[in-house]
């Protein structure tokens, strides 16, 4: 009888272990997400958008992972710090206005990863002697990762076209 009990115990325990393994393998990470993560991701993107509209990106490094990379309109810009130093940072110095309209964002969660798609129109008013206004339709894809409890952009790709 004892032997039978032990054998049953053995089978049950082994079954549980296999069961755990299967659960892990079949787990749908997208279902683990909750609305607070989606909102947190949107907050990161909104903080960046707000910084661009305020023409001040001096405190945006914390929104990006250290090794984050940027694509813009067919160009690899390097790391976010490279992009800040060589592109968007100096560029904003020539803008009098940078505003977004018709802004929409969709966020998809995949475990500790998120992918966001932003669509918007933007208006840039350039100052100085060559003052002019540029208006374009734009999209951006951002891949974000949750790091130590904070969502950070690890890859960003922005592109634009003439307004219809």
């Amino acid at each position, binding site marked *: 009888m*004892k*032997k039978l009990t*032990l*054998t049953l*115990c*053995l089978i049950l*325990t*082994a079954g549980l*272990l*296999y069961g755990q*393994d299967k659960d*892990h*393998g079949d787990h749908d*990470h997208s279902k683990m997400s909750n609305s607070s993560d989606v909102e947190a991701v949107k907050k990161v993107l909104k903080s960046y958008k707000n910084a661009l509209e305020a023409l001040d990106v001096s405190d945006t490094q914390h929104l990006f992972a250290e090794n984050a*990379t940027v*694509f*813009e*309109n*067919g*160009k*690899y810009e390097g790391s976010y710090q490279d992009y800040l130093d060589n592109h968007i940072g100096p560029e904003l110095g020539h803008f009098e206005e940078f505003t977004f309209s018709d802004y929409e964002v*969709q966020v*998809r969660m*995949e*475990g*500790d*990863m998120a*992918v966001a*798609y932003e*669509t918007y129109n933007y208006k840039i008013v350039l100052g100085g002697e060559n003052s002019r206004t540029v208006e*374009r*339709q*734009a*999209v951006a*894809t951002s*891949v974000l990762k949750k790091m130590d409890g904070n969502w950070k952009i*690890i*890859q960003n*790709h*922005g*592109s*634009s*076209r003439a307004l219809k």
Partner: protein
Amino acid sequence: MKTFLSSLILLFMISGTAFAQHEHHDDKKMHTAGDEEIVQVLENFRMAIINNEQEKASELLAEDARILESGGIETKEEYLSHHFHSDGKFLSAMEREVKSQKVKSNENTAWVSTVSHMQGTFNEKEVSVNSAELAVLVKTGGGWKISSVHWSSRSAE
């Protein structure tokens, strides 16, 4: 007592095997061969566009895929019924050289950033453009599928 000990040893052996299988499974996913599989899906998609194989392209895209192209965004259905055809004509006229390609992945998600140069004649015009592509793929029961792809380009001149 002997029976109990034997059962206990057997239990550890079985549970050890179960855990070992799990670890091996994860290690395999981190292997470079996994990256090749992901890159191959993107290459198959590119060839499906060039060869105007709409059904094949559709199979490689996730149902809710988004295609972003130089300031615009389309659903899978919109893309396949519209820009898919013009992209095929353009890509088939181009010589493409991949300058760099980085693949990053975790268990169920991968993202691939590719920089390439394309050159050729399209609509009787010489074209030379640098192109950036960010593709996100998700692992499904049917293998890796493209969840989104974002293309943009600029003149290389």
